[in-house]
């Protein structure tokens, strides 16, 4: 895919040593625009460039609008005051106001280019995360294969998935989509990249160092929102997640907690929250897909008029080849999870579905699984 020649872009970007364009302090206009500082080095760079551009623009804007208002007042049309003769052009002046802003733009371009290369190329040896976007959630795989299942309520939203990162660490993201184009945007890091089916994209950043303001009752961490920025369908606006930067020790512990608990129901529930909760509820409400409450063992009626009892094989087929049988009243919207979910997890999901179905005899104690999913935050024991 690479042309025989390729310009040495990185060399070009480093040809002029990067200079910090403005001091990094979130006050004044910078606070109005961004509220907080950029959280990574390259984000600070971006803020600086933005503010530089802002003042550059403001200078010309105020100049032009000032002249406009002033001249509109002093040259307003008044009865009995004849108009004046005035020049119709002035070549030196015109050259001046062409050249001066143009050179300013050259500077802005080059600073932007330097910041771009800085964001795009991850440091060698960085912690590499595989991010898969799908309708409508992100799946993040850690180098040891761990996937996240922890969710929190944040910013007025339930079921926001949390992905932990160690503080002060180089991270490299590799992005791939399972269906349509998404974009992985971390506003605090001032960086986004489109996520494509059948093509890897990615970028790198260095996670921030935690400060005293990051001590919370439940632990030491700082949250950063992730949004999907490329329009991808019905729940595009719900496709959010949180990157939680925490001390390295906490991160190691967190990673360990994400592993198997030994109980297929709990593991299945974790798979549910990480991959299925966007479209399927467990409280009986209808969403994009059918609710899982009392699904297992019930009789499913399909669009083509046939029906079937939901057993293990049916559920497995529905996960791997979802459009084979469409339940009456639903659209064939789900994409295949072949290659996304492994057999163990399918078994765990089935165990979880059994545990919330009245068509299956529950164990004597009954773990109270029927309760609303909003209280799910306790499952992982924060951090």
């Amino acid at each position, binding site marked *: 895919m690479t042309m025989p020649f390729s*310009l040495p872009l990185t060399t070009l970007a480093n040809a002029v040593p990067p200079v910090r364009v403005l001091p990094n302090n979130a006050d004044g206009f910078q606070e109005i625009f961004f509220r907080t500082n950029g959280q990574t080095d390259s984000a600070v760079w971006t803020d600086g460039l933005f503010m530089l551009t802002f003042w550059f623009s403001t200078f010309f804007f105020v100049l032009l609008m000032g002249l406009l208002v002033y001249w509109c007042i002093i040259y307003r*049309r008044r009865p009995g005051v004849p108009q004046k003769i*005035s020049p119709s052009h002035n070549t030196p002046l015109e050259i001046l106001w062409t050249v001066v802003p143009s050179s300013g733009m050259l500077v802005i*371009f080059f600073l932007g280019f330097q910041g771009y290369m800085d964001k795009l190329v991850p440091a060698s040896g960085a912690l590499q995360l595989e991010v898969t976007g799908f309708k409508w959630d992100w799946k993040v795989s850690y180098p040891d294969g761990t996937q996240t299942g922890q969710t929190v309520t944040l910013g007025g939203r339930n079921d926001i998935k949390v992905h932990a990162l160690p503080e002060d660490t180089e991270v490299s993201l590799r992005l791939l989509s399972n269906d349509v184009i998404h*974009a992985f945007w971390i506003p605090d890091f001032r960086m986004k990249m489109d996520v494509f089916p059948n093509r890897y994209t990615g970028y790198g950043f260095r996670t921030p160092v935690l400060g005293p303001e990051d001590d919370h009752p439940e632990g030491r961490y700082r949250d950063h929102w992730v949004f999907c920025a490329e*329009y991808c*369908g019905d729940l595009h606006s719900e496709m959010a997640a949180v990157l939680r930067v925490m001390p390295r020790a906490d991160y190691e512990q967190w990673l360990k907690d994400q592993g198997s608990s030994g109980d297929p129901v709990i593991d299945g529930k974790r798979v549910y929250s990480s991959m299925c909760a966007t479209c399927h*509820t467990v409280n009986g409400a209808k969403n994009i897909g059918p609710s899982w409450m009392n699904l297992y063992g019930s009789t499913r009626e399909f669009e083509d008029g046939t029906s079937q009892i939901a057993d293990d094989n049916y559920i497995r087929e529905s996960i791997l080849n979802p459009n084979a049988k469409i339940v009456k009243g639903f659209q064939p919207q789900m994409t295949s999870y072949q290659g996304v979910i492994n057999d163990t997890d399918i078994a765990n999901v089935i165990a979880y579905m059994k545990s919330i179905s009245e068509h299956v005899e529950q164990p004597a104690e009954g773990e109270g699984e029927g309760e609303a999913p909003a209280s799910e935050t306790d499952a992982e024991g924060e951090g």
Partner: protein
Amino acid sequence: MTTAETTHDHHDEGSYLTPKYGVMGTIWDWMTTVDHKKIGVMYLFAVLFMFFLGGVAALAVRLELLEPVRVAADGTITGQLFGPANPESIATGNNIFNRLFTLHGAIMVFMFIIPSVPAALGNFFLPLMLGAKDVAFPRLNLFSWYIYVVGSLFGVFSIILGGVDTGWTFYTPYSTTTDADHWRVLLMVLAAFVLGFSSILTGLNFIVTTHKLRAPGMGWFDMPLFIWAIYATSIIQVLATPVIGITLLLLIFERLFKVGIFDPALGGDPVLYQHFFWFYSHPVVYVMILPGMGIISEILSVHARKHIFGYRAIAFSSLGIAAVSFIVWGHHMFTAMGELASTIFSALTFLVAIPTAIKMFNWIATLYKGSIAINTPMLYALSFLFLFSIGGLTGLPLGALATDLHLHDSYFVVAHFHYTMMGGTVIAFLGGIHHWWPKMFGRMYNERAGMIGCVLVFIGFNLTFMTQFFLGTQGMPRRYASYIDEFQTLHVLSTYGSWILLAGFLVHLFNFIHSLVAGPKAPPNPWGGLTLEWETESPPIEHNFHHEVLVQHGPYDFDTVVPPHCDEREFPLPETPASH
């Protein structure tokens, strides 16, 4: 010597608006007319109707965003308005929202803003300003109007069938897979495809007209700047629109036959679609803005009674913008392209800023030592200068790579292009309508109402979209039906702004209706303009001019020429004798 003396020998020729053949006959006359003025008026009403449709969608979108809706039980405002099929489902509310913003985008871009100035005002005034009797191919002109109507009908049908949720950009593979069981996406794509032909034929017509039908004595640099702008626009229309034709055709093939060129499922490339799309759609933003710039040049010089500053610089910068527009489309795709292409496109993007800045400086300099009348067209022109410079300057962080990676697909972009498209084109369009309203319909509008409307539009617009810049930098992505709580304050302000905007438009609407019904009769040259359209009656006679036109002065020679049909006492020449 006086304006009353305008009628003479050829008074048998009535105004083009005079009905001649009874009611049905008049309707038939309009439907089959090849008169560019009638076609222009038909375009005007068609695009204003589309503006109304798109505006309703925009208001609904803003209404939905009044509060951050996040759980299924809440329902959504649009859901309550439009009656969702499954009130308990969060997806239904979002789905309606998605259809609304697509509707807004597709209608505003393809059916309103692209044909707005060139097809409506351009059709009416290009031949008049050139001193020609008609455009070069009058029947082709009528044909393109009908194509426009057919295309718009396709679009409207697709909305009636349930709307489209692809976004107006139709990005693959979403657009090739969504609503797979329905024809409406195809209908909407087909609508855009058909509308492209209308655009091409109009542009072709204008280029030939400008080349061949200039009045005797009118050299290239005696043309009004509005003509230059329309000419540059037409070049873009002719060169760029065929590419969207083939792109949408491929998209239709993709949906119908799954040919795979844009489909990663078959090894195709979705970014190739984006290249195809933006090769058209970037130049086309200059199709939208260039005619607006032309209008501003006219309004500023006439209402400041001032020779435009740097005529040639403005004329050439129009052509320059047209030329550069073909090599900067990649800045819509910095998050999707390879590094080399991004860098090159970023560098080239800043080239566009240069001719635009030149125009800006020249317009401001035109005001110097003018005789500035503050009326509705002038207020709109000043609003344009204010809003469009914000729109242009906020393009800088979007053109720079590092900042664009943050701002891309955020509300910052939304605000930026509304400042250029609406703060630029729509404001200029409204200014142009007011400027030429007496000429088109032969009646004056109420100046006070016009100015109130303009001020309302200006305030409402800034409140609506200024807030969105801050939303964007703080991290609000575009096309979101719901959002996190932190963004609510700004969203609420923005929605309130949209209501003020609505009030401003309603004032204009009533003003126009009042003017048509009971407005005072307009003189042939109410503003004292020097371009040729002011030399004929208001409204113009059917063949435009009573005599063969011979151009003997430039369009902006206010220093040396008393405007036609005007009293020397009201429009005195400067005290100092002109030195040519």
